[in-house]
């Protein structure tokens, strides 16, 4: 066996190791969302406010609305929450999706910090999030009156984001 062949396994492992090291700390779930421009995916999930009721995609249509993925486990959602309260007070329709979360803490949160949502979908298994290409909370989508996804924003929404990403589409569409 010549020298190169002896070192081959080590070299192969070196290349492999480099890829593994690259992967550390990167979020493998970060994928571009393919839903923009298409209708909301079909779903049928419980309502956080009243868990005997189901919410489906058709319940979210009728006006421009924000669809906000959040969770009590998500620190950035704390930061975002007051601005959502403000938007709701201005009359913007916001639907919440309680994403990979638990029912009781979610209700507690809405009581403690206020409830900006018209309805809150309980997406415990992350199914709706998966269909929408959600990579983490918070994430917010703009839905047209006929139920088409118009825009997406990853991270906490603030006034600047709302004015630049969502507001223009709500006027022109």
């Amino acid at each position: 066996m010549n020298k190169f062949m002896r070192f081959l396994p080590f070299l192969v492992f070196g290349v492999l190791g480099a890829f593994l090291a690259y992967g550390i700390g990167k979020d493998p779930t970060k994928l571009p969302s393919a839903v923009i421009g298409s209708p909301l995916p079909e779903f049928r999930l419980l309502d956080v406010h009243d868990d005997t009721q189901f919410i489906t995609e058709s319940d979210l249509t009728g006006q421009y609305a924000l669809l906000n993925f959040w969770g009590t486990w998500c620190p950035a959602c704390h930061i975002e929450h007051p601005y959502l309260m403000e938007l709701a007070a201005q009359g913007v329709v916001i639907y919440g999706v309680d994403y990979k979360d638990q029912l009781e803490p979610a209700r507690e949160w809405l009581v403690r910090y206020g409830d900006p949502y018209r309805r809150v979908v309980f997406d415990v298994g992350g199914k709706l999030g998966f269909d929408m290409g959600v990579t983490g909370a918070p994430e917010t989508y703009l839905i047209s009156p006929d139920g088409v996804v118009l825009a997406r924003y990853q991270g906490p929404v603030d006034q600047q984001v709302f004015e630049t990403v969502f507001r223009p589409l709500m006027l022109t569409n």
Partner: protein
Amino acid sequence: MVAEFGLFALWIAFAASLLLAVVPMVGSYRDSSLLMTVDRPLARVLFIALSGSVIALAIAFLNDDFSVAYVANHSNSLLPWYYKITAVWGSHEGSVLFQLWILSIWIIAFSLFSKRVDTVLRARVLSVLGLVSLGFCAFILFTSSPFERLLPFAPGEGSDLNPLLQDFGMIIHPPLLYIGYVGFAISYGFAIAALLSNRLDREWARWARPWTAIAMGFLTLGIVIGSWWAYAELGWGGWWFWDPVENASLMPWLVGVALVHSLSVSEQRGAFLSWTLLLSISAFSLSLLGAFLVRSGVITSVHAFASDPERGMFILWILFIAVGGGLLLYALKLPKNLKAKPFGLTGREFFLLLNNVFLVVITVTVLIGTLWPLIADALNWGKISVGAQYFNAIAIPMFTLMSVLVPIGVYANWGGSSSELGSKLLVPIALSLLIALGAGALIDFSLSTILVWWLGCWLLVATLDQLRRATAGFNKTKLMSLRSGLWGMYLSHAGIGVAIIGVGMTTLHSAEVDVRMGEGDSHVVGSYEFTLREFAPLRGPNYQSESATIDVYYRERLVATLVPEKRRYVATGQIMTEAAVDDGLTRDLYVALGEPLDNGDWAVRLQVKSFMRWVWYGGAMIFLGGLLAGFDRRYRRKYE
């Protein structure tokens, strides 16, 4: 208090591992038999300390000590006691501890049952194992202690064990898998010791064989039971998904199987020695890679523990040191002039070489497929994930070809030039073809059905024929005195045949429908009629559920009553599908509740899965085969 005791015991284990890693190794270079045999007390201390640590964690669970973070996050006072115990290995921190404890069992077993092994080699194997144990100890102590407290504000109630893990399959699946994974540490230790001692020969291969066979056997059972768990618990009737974590367990298994066979060539013929060495390092490396993939979060999977870069980095360092170090040593110190007996194209060696080539090609395929999302992302080729088609396209033809060759390899003689090889094959081929045509006639005459049955029966018939030849026509005294190693081989090969029929039939001939059902509704699937008798609410210890009672009729006769459930776990609000399965030799009846519909009806999935059990039976046979091979008395005798 008990958590602190567990942590203290873990530190003792750390110290014992450190001593084990250093002392016998130093002894082996100083030629001091005292230092080389100090492993016995050290292995005992290590085992007792880790047992204490695991028991401490179990007690914390049983006592509902929610001041311990790990307990608070993974248990609940309503959880049944047996799930409290299994919660010990139900999540990241505890499962590493549990895995380490299993390593200590392997270490103590090796330290007790390796009297035949050359003293220097043995001391070095044990030191390598000490080093592996040290790495895991450090990993737990520095990044993943299950004994951390939530003080001063301990929660009054725990947040419950993931309902997916509240299942019998989950109780036994991880331990078995860990026994397999960790067992390859011994093969790895043998490889490193061989390189350090410049000692690579037939005797070395004989010493390494039983340990490898047993590890491979347990890994097989672990994978099979994991697959069974997914089938019973995930609720959609699949049993293999090419999920990254499944792949992570499959890769060491493939290499382990290759290793078991290449070791036999190395022992019997002194051939493939450097290859065997490389496989020994690879099997353990792939086990470590599996641990890395599961615990670092670099790949998404249903099994993955929470992503944590710090832990990922730590395992990556262990991986670099163990694998990189091992392979570097291989490059630098591989003994030269390894002499092997020559063999021809009809020699058993040649068929075992093909077996190894196939297995390694499948392994590389799975490895690339599993890491592809990571590689593509690193090279900026976009976000890609690899689907089942890719894996199936390569693995199925490879497995098929390999299975065809299995009996031929066993019929062939070492070295080759067996003129009657062709005539030996004739009868089993003809007989299996006959059975396959018969089965095909009973089922559907399709070519694929006949191929599946032929392949399965070819392995079964040929193996039976080989047993007949080895025992002079099933002579009773010969049967009784047949080496358990041979029994192991026959049983494993027959197990592959059984599994092939299971996999093939369930893929080709299963029927499933998704239907809407109310009370009194009936649906026919295959030749079975499913009638929904009633819906009823049920209460479990820590969940509430909706259940449906479904009677299944075959030719107007009631054959089974199934009660699938949709459970809702109280503490987490998680909804779980509890499928109901009636298992039979030739078919499983599988019913799962989907979603509730508006007027009280439910969406229900009804399945008839052909020959499903045979997949598990085949796996169980391979497991038993591995054990029998490992406990062959030949390995306990002195080498002539």
